[in-house]
């Protein structure tokens, strides 16, 4: 009997592709963010609002993932930015290879922002690095305040929590402070933005966050990723 040490990631192949993608994004100054939430938290609505308000001169593109249908891409294409649907066929998350494949006929040098809308799922997407600069988690006020505690991995890995559907706060028993506290128990440095895609509340703050995040990204990209 001989024990051979392997000492590498189980998702080695995914991570290898993710590192390649991250390096390409770095070289071309593309801020890539990966949006993750439960189904129905409002990822597509947030992107609709974002693209609607984005100056046409902004060079942004969206990859949107679902198990089936082109519905989300159709919703997002109305705003004139390049959008591609990734249908996973049944897989509960996007992986780095899917991203790479769908980027093949886009020129990264023409982009400033690449927004990835992951498959609606709080669990599996947290294990797959897509080469993004930041993961962003959405939580809506129709969900439980304890979701960060129930699904800690994604809240641990996300830089920003967008608390969506705040227009419903008068009608639902959702304690914002408790939700934020729970998120910060899992991830003390978590940033939080409150948004309503219906009224537009907070969308400007979220867009500013993206702009600022790209600014930081461009400043730090002088050092290549290890």
């Amino acid at each position, binding site marked *: *009997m*001989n*024990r*051979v*040490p*392997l*000492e*590498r*990631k*189980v*998702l*080695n*192949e995914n991570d290898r592709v993710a590192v390649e993608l991250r390096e390409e994004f770095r070289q071309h100054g593309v801020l890539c963010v990966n949006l993750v939430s439960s189904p129905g938290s409002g990822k597509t609505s947030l992107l609709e609002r974002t693209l609607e308000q984005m100056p046409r001169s902004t060079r942004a593109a969206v990859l949107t993932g679902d198990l089936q249908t082109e519905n989300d891409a159709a919703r997002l294409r109305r705003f004139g930015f390049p959008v591609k649907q990734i249908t996973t066929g049944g*897989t*509960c*998350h996007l992986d780095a290879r899917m991203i790479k494949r769908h980027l093949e006929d886009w020129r990264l040098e023409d982009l400033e922002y690449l927004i990835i809308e992951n498959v609606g799922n709080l*669990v*599996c997407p*947290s*294990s*797959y690095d897509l080469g993004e600069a930041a993961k962003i988690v959405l939580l809506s006020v129709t969900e439980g305040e304890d979701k960060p*505690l129930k*699904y*800690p*991995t*994604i809240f*641990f*890995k996300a830089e920003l929590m967008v608390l969506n559907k705040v227009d419903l706060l008068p009608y639902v028993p959702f304690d914002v402070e408790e939700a934020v506290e729970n998120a910060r*128990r*899992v991830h*003390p440095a978590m940033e939080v933005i409150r948004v309503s895609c219906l009224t537009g509340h907070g969308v400007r703050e979220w867009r500013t966050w993206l702009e600022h995040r790209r600014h930081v990204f461009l400043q730090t990209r002088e050092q290549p990723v290890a």
Partner: protein
Amino acid sequence: MHEMGIANSILEAVRTEMERHPASRATRVGVRVGKLAAIDGESLRFCFDALKRETDLEELELEIEVCPRRHRCKLCGSEFTVRDYDFECPQCHGLASECLSGDELDLAYVEVEQYEPRTAGAQSS
């Protein structure tokens, strides 16, 4: 439910490794799974067993080592295990700490056994 994909990646990694060990079989593979890795051990084992059935790796056993969430206190530098989101440093009771580990999803080792030499080969002397 991405444990099926994870289980498949583990089996693929073992097959790749076994290309370097001719005339041998893999008997056990060890993985390290962090508390924060969002992997359910039971479910991973179920998928692993289902995928290896009636393949060359049918006899392969899976060992899962669960790794705790470890933090380092930013004030006094001591390292501690976080349980139930209690981030208080047991040494200085400070609340500022950074996460060191706990989201592992690593292949640790594979145990390899050589096939018994054939009787015909043993007779050659």
